[in-house]
Structures are given as C-alpha cells and as structure tokens.
C-alpha cells in the first residue's frame, strides 16, 4: 500500500519529467509502428501474390523475431550507432512479423471462389486487392496490428538502454540508482500507454468494420483517424530525434549512480558558464563498450571514465594500471583516438576493504598492512565474484599475508547489512558505494597499491576541445573537488535518500559555491 502511494506521489511530483518521457515514448513507438505497418503490409501483400517466396520471407521474419532484443541492439549499434535510429530499426524489425504474417494469413485464407468471382466479373488485380482482399483480410490484419502496437510500445522500454528516450529512462534510472518506485512508475506508465493505444485501435477497428455505421461511429472514426494523423505529424515535425543542432555538447554517462550525478553537474555548470547546450544520454547500456565506439564516431563528445577501465577495456592493455602510468594512458589515447583525459575529479572508484569502526579503533587499524596482523581473529565477507577473480581474494591474501579466521560468501545487496549486524568484521567494497556513507564503517588504505587504480576523469574528443576552447576551463572547476567519501555521500543521497541525481548535483555545486544565481 505504501509502495503504491510512493509511486503515485512520485508521478505527481515529477509529472513534467514523466510527461516528457511519455511523449518521447509515443514518438519513438509511433514512428516505428508507422514504418512497420507500411512495410509489413507491403511485404505481406507481396508474398500473398508470390506464394513461392512466402515460406522464405516468413521464415526470415520469424527468425529475426526470435533474436533477443539485447543482442539485436548490440548487433545494430556498429551500423547505426547509439540512439533513436537504432531503436527504431530494431522496433520495426520486431514489428514486421505480426504484420507480415497476419496480412499473409488474412489474404490467403479468403475463399478462392470469391476471388474468382471478382476476377470473372472484370476486376483488375488492384481492384481485387483493394475491394476484395484487403477488406476481407482486415480483421486478421487488425489483430496482428494491435498485437504489434502493444508489443512495440512495451519494447520501446528498451530504447533507453542504448541512449534513446522514452519511459525506459525511468525504468533504467530506477534500476541503476536502486529506486524501485521509479522503476515501477515507468513500467506502470508503459503498461497504461499500451493498454490505452490498444483500446483506441480496438474502437477504431470496431467502427471501421461495423456493418451499418451509425452517425456516432462515423464521427468516432473521423476523430480517431484525425487524432492519429495529427499525432504522427506532430511526432515527425517536432522530433529532434535525428537532427543535431549547433553548439551542442553530447555527453554520455554509464549506468551508474555516480555517473548520472556527475553528468547532471557537468550539464549545469557548462550551460551556466557558456552558451553551449549539453545533451545528456543517460546510463548508456553496456557502458564503456558502447560509449567508446560512439565517441569515436563523434556521436558523443565527452563522458566520465575511470583510468583503469580506459587502460584495460579500451586500450586492451594486459598490465595492471597505476596512476604512475597516467602519461602513457594520455599519450595512447591521443594517438589511437585523439581523445584527452582532462580534469580528474579526485576520486578513485576501485575495490576497497572496509572494517567495522569499533574494530578499527580497538586495534588501531588504518591500512591493509595493519589489518594483516589481526586477521586470525576476524571474519571476511565478499560477494562470490571476488573469490573467483584472478586478482581477487587469493591474490590479495598473498600480497598482504592475510589469514582470516573465516571467509563468507555474501550477497552484494546484503554486504553492508552483514557488517552492521556484526555477522562479518571485514568486507570488500567499492570505494564510492553509497552505503559507505555510514560512520560505523571505515575504509582502509591500500598501502601496497594492490588494487588497480580507477581515477575518474572526463574523456573528451580533442576536436570538441578545440572547437569550444572555453570547455576545458569549465571542466577544471570540478578538478579534484570530489573525494572518495564525497562521491559515496552523493551516491547515498540518490540511492538511499531517493533524491534525484539532478537535485544532488545542484546541491553539491551549490556547496562548492560554483552556482551563480
């Protein structure tokens, strides 16, 4: 019950945000529906007239339909990039099956005697199609169409996964920032939207196929058709879906709470200090692996990245990265991509070891080496993953000569609860975890630099830096302004206190005195 109230409150408080998402959602899905309807009808009609090709075509369409949407998107990204084009292509491809299949079934199931009668009376092929075949196939086509509409609206929810808009943004943001209310609100709206559209088209179908259309029905058909046309035209005209305006910085973030906060902060400060507009593509699914190619193509200009990730995942270096290698990292990026690492934020999002504060104080433990002396009395907890990794538990144990009394597998969601309840004494954490913003827990110092370094910077295209020379200075305003614990605190505001990333970013800039009124 409380949950429902939370959802309703959120929808009410953030009505603008959701309304905008609903509109984007409709835009993307309606364009896909329109294209799929035309293509599907044409293809369906064509294979009905050329029966020999029908098995092959339906086979292909059927096969495509069974490809999981995530793989299809992954497959399309290298060709059509991140964003709306790819999403619309994917949606159209899925929507084809119900349209093609139902058009074909509807036409081929017509009693051949009726078609022969029409032919024998002197109808042309086109007249047979328009006057006989399509009207008789209409109920079957409509059921495929409605099916397709509902499916497309639901599937548009994945759009945000690759940086397009729509209600998926709410769902995805909810998942990334651990906000179930947000996720549910987005899903609910998608369901309502699908239901609503199906209702409209259901009424339209009834009105269209009514035997003796009365005046009321006729009016309804006219109004509904007009509304759909207006909506479509509106969607087309006002879509900035494909166009790119000048003086726009395209900023991408990975699906992580801290990236969303930083993204919002960057947008605010860049737009305040210059006449540039920042367009954020929030939480791009797959993170670096999808953002990097889009950066190379120039679809994005800037995104927050971690040094260790750049070294291993982008440059594909095998060695472990430490900050002493920063110059090398910078040079390799310049040479390979003509990107720069600029204005490091000052925090390091890497593995860390946290200890319950009472224990740390009792034994005066500050570093990993301090901890090593007391391990025989302590219980260690980490997620299953950490024991499996090559650079995980075993490597750590031998680097510092740890010898814990006991080691425990913990669910990543329950890690912090376990240490607070005293079930374990030591846990492995990420150094900017929101839950670290808790004075019962202390993060120790990795005095032998065991864990690779993942310092957060902006990766920017040099082309962008040259085109907008003012940008570098603006980015520098945030240089070294965020420590590990500050980042953890900001994450905490979003993940635990359920504040909006934008709000948290604003409050933080305000704290730093960077906001002008």
């Amino acid at each position: 019950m409380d949950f429902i109230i939370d959802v309703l409150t959120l929808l009410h408080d953030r009505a603008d945000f959701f309304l905008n998402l609903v509109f984007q959602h409709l835009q993307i899905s309606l364009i896909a529906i329109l294209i799929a309807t035309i293509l599907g009808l044409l293809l369906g009609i064509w294979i009905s007239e050329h029966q020999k090709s029908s098995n092959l075509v339906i086979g292909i369409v059927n096969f495509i339909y069974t490809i999981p949407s995530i793989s299809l998107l992954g497959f399309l990204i290298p060709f059509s990039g991140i964003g709306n084009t790819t999403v619309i292509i994917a949606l159209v491809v899925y929507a084809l099956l119900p349209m093609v299949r139902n058009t074909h079934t509807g036409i081929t199931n017509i009693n051949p005697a009726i078609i022969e009668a029409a032919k024998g009376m002197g109808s042309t092929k086109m007249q047979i199609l328009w006057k006989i075949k399509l009207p008789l196939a209409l109920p079957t086509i409509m059921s495929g169409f409605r099916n397709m509409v509902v499916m497309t609206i639901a599937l548009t929810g994945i759009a945000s996964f690759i940086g397009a808009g729509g209600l998926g943004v709410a769902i995805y943001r909810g998942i990334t920032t651990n906000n179930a209310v947000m996720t549910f609100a987005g899903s609910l709206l998608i369901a309502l939207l699908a239901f609503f559209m199906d209702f409209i088209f259901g009424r339209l179908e009834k009105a269209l196929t009514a035997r003796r259309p009365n005046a009321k029905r006729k009016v309804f058909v006219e109004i509904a058709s007009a509304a759909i046309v207006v909506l479509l035209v509106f969607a087309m005209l006002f879509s900035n879906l494909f166009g790119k305006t000048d003086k726009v910085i395209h900023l991408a973030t990975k699906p992580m709470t801290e990236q969303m906060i930083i993204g919002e902060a960057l947008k605010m400060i860049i737009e305040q200090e210059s006449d540039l507009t920042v367009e954020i593509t929030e939480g791009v699914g797959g993170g670096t692996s999808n953002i990097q190619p889009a950066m190379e193509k120039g679809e994005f200009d800037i995104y927050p990245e971690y040094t260790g990730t750049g070294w291993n995942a982008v440059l594909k270096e095998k060695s472990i990265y430490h900050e002493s290698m920063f110059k090398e990292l910078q040079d390799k990026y310049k040479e390979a991509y003509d990107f720069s690492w600029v204005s490091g934020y000052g925090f390091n999002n890497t593995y860390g070891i946290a200890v319950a504060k009472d224990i740390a104080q009792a034994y005066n433990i500050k570093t990993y080496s301090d901890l090593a002396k007391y391990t025989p009395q302590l219980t260690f907890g980490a997620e299953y993953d950490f024991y499996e990794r090559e650079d995980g538990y075993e490597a750590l144990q031998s680097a510092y000569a740890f010898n814990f009394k006991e080691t425990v597998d913990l669910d990543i969601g329950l890690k912090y609860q376990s240490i607070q309840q005293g079930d374990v004494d030591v846990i492995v954490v990420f150094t900017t975890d929101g839950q670290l913003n808790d004075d019962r827990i202390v993060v120790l110092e990795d005095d032998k630099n065991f864990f690779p370094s993942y310092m957060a910077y902006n990766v920017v295209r040099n082309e962008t830096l040259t085109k907008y020379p003012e940008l570098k200075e603006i980015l520098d305003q945030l240089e070294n302004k965020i420590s590990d614990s500050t980042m953890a605190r900001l994450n905490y505001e979003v993940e635990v206190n359920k504040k909006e990333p934008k709000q948290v970013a604003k409050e933080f800039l305000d704290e730093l005195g960077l906001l002008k009124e």
Partner: protein
Amino acid sequence: MNTIIEFKHARKSYGDHVVIPDLNLKIEKGEFVTLIGSSGSGKTTILKMINGLIPLDAGNVYVEGKDIASEDLICLRRNIGYAIQGSGLFPHMDVEDNIAYVPNLLNKKDKQRTRKAVEKWIQVVGLERDLLDRYPDELSGGQQQRVGIARALAASPEILLMDEPFGAVDDITRHMLQDEIKRIHEQTGVTIVFVTHDIREALKLGTKVIVLEHGEIAQYDTPEAIQQAPANDYVKQLISDK
C-alpha cells in the same frame, strides 16, 4: 441468326490429362444454352474459356466475332455476366454494393445511374427493395442466388455465364429460381450459357442443350430433338434418368 460465341478447335489439358480435346461450337445470340454432363466432363472449363479465366492450349474462342486472345480480358469480362454456385457474393458488402459491383467498375462517377440499375435488377430477380442493405449472411440461400443473378446482370451484359447456380438450394426454391431465370431470359433476350449436372434442369431451361462426354460434344440440339433422338447410348442413359 448471328453467332455470338464460337469455339474453333479449342483444346485444354492439364499435364497428360486432356480435358477438352477439340471443341467446335457455335452459340447463337439470344439462346439459352444448357451444358450438361457428368462431373469432371469439362463443363466449367468450357464456361471459363468464354470469359478468359482459363486460357486455351490451342484453337480459338470468338465472342461477338472477335478472338478473345487479342481482346482486353478485363473489358471483355465486364460485358459478360458471371454467376457461380453458392452465389460467390462478397461477404463484406451489402446487397446493394454486391449488385453495384460491376457498374461501379465501369462508371465510378455516375452514382445515379448505378443506383437505378440496382433498383431495376433487384426487382427483376423478384426481391424486395428493403433487402438492399442486408449482408449476404443475412439472406436465405434462394435470396443469395437471386442477388447473384442480379449482380451478374447489373451491367446489362449481352452474355450471361452461369455455373450450376442453383446447385446449393432446396428443390422448391430451385424450381422457383428456374422459372425466374427462364422469365428473365425471355424478358431481356440475353444469351445464357448455363452449366448443370441435372438433366431435368437442362431440358426444362434450355432452348438448346449441349450434352458433354469427356470434353466432347455428344449431342447439341433442342431439348425436344434430344429427347426424341438421343445421339448415343450415353445421351439415352442420361435422359432415361429423368
């Protein structure tokens, strides 16, 4: 008398199966020709050769003196009425639209004229005007056949082709429909080619009867002549079934 339909050495086969080996036939204008034969003897095939639904393998078919092979088939068909078994009415159109189908193909703009034709023909086939906005599945079998005939005649064709049009109705209705089509023939003077497998129907309706045996004409004559002098055993057998 002038010939309106003529077959010259018409031939049709499906693979090895020769359906019509060599057909020579003249039909005079204004006749009511019934075409009788057992199932599979090629009646429908002959009928569909006239409106070009089935192309010939060899030979020629002439309609009003012109070889249909060199005619525009769409145009030809619009001037030949076509009624088939089970009426073949369009289920998504009401009676009016069904009857108006060919007139609409011919003169889309002239709604007035089409409407007049519809009203005329619904009366000619003996139906009430208030059936005009009914749909085929809201009619009895007999009513459907009548609409089928009205539709075939709506554009006032010179020729009417009918393929077992009364095959699917009960005896009483069939008798009424037979009387009706005979009256229409007398009233309009349209040339009718009427396929049936019922010898009584063939003899009752036809001014001429063609008896078909394995795609070949066993006898082509008036009903009286056929009854008095059957040409062979098959015809004899056929009329004795009567």
